[in-house]
């Protein structure tokens, strides 16, 4: 699949929109509460026209139930900030990718105990994905093994470190 040239940072240049963006960008992922929706690349677009703010989000995985929570949180946060008319919509295209995760987001993930995605998603373009060594977020060892490709949420896999013996979540390259 050809990766679309969509970047992690879609911050608007219009000062009014940027102000609203910064407020929306404080919303956290309810499942990984150290990441903001900006870190995740879920916040795609913010526009302000008069008293109306339009925000566009993109879901991580198609079935991820967290997206509704994020939408409600964006809505609440903007209303609290004084915006009277808030609309939050979704887009599916371009499809979300971990390539959009900010470096800051990856650092926060690691500190939280989740191994961040360790490659660009184009690595997965083959018929059977190639798995690269995943570093243990606690002891940095590469002696880790996958327990399950599917972890506690759609975006994570379950790993175990054979050096420090701790299990950990890995945020899958997607």
């Amino acid at each position, binding site marked *: *699949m050809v990766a679309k040239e969509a970047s992690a940072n879609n911050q608007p240049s219009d000062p009014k929109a940027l102000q609203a963006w910064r407020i929306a960008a404080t919303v956290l992922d309810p499942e990984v509460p150290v990441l903001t929706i900006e870190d995740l690349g879920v916040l795609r677009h913010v526009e302000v026209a008069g008293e109306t703010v339009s925000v*566009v989000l993109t*879901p991580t*995985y*198609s*079935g*991820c*139930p967290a997206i*509704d929570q994020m*939408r*409600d949180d964006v809505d609440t946060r903007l209303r609290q900030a004084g915006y009277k008319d808030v*609309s*939050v*919509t*979704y*887009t*599916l*295209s*371009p*499809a*979300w*990718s971990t390539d959009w995760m900010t470096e800051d987001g990856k650092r926060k993930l690691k500190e939280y105990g989740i191994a961040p995605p360790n490659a660009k*998603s184009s690595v*997965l373009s083959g*018929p*059977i*994905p190639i798995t690269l060594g995943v570093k243990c977020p606690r002891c940095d060892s590469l002696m880790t093994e996958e*327990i*399950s*490709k*599917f*972890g*506690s*949420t*759609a975006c994570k896999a*379950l790993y175990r470190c054979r050096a420090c013996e701790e299990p950990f979540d890995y945020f899958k390259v*997607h």
Partner: protein
Amino acid sequence: MTQAKAESVVTDSEVHGDVSVDELKLADELLGTGRVASKEVAAYALRLGDDALILSQSLSWWVSRAPELEEDMALANITLDLLGHARAFLHFAGTASKKSEDDLAYWRDEHEFVNCWLVEQPGHDFAEMIARQFLFSAYQVGLYAALATSKDSSLAAIAAKSAREVRYHYDHAVQWVLRLGDGTEESRSRMIQALIDMWPYVDELFEDDDLTESLTGVAVLPSTLRPGFDEKVAAVLGEVDIEIPAGKPAKANGRQGIHTNQMGYILAEMQWLTRRHPEAKW
């Protein structure tokens, strides 16, 4: 699978039995484009949506019944992905008839569902479920990769998103086919039997008809996906020295709304709650 959104104000006038209903506002277009599907495109989207929905419902039977916790989580994740795909396709299909994804999922009867027979086959034996996942994911991997280049931008968007996810489903199923096929005598014989049992429902996936033939460049012509599917299946089964089943195809007719016995049970479980509490939203 509601896409409705709870507002902060709860009205107590709308209470159905013990389900209290919030004041709801319909979410905006899931696809963000506000496009309306033509009748033909909607009919095609309905097939794709029904396949994903019924497989999701069938597979959800396994949640809490898998042999280990990790597998429970894996199957729950796959179920959720499929439900996400179904929601997007049904939402889009519904734009043609002004029906919501919930209308389509909960308020159609058996003869109105146009899913293929494979997804409604019982998979209450672990190997059978894996065989169903393996064959269907192998088909879907090719389908979504091709559909991602559809001339219809909504179908292309849903397919491009789903394509990334079904690769995990396929990989998951492949790992199990190899593990069971190469495991004990018992696991191997059950894996072989499961593949034989599911095989009659494979041909239906690749049948062209008037609808797919008329939607040139929009729909993927199913027959064009067969070579890629056969190649995948041969490569995986070859690794564990299992022969490709040779059973005759079933006279499957799911696209015309004709289904196997199992379908009634699936729908009963999926739809009873909504039908018991009409118009309840949660």
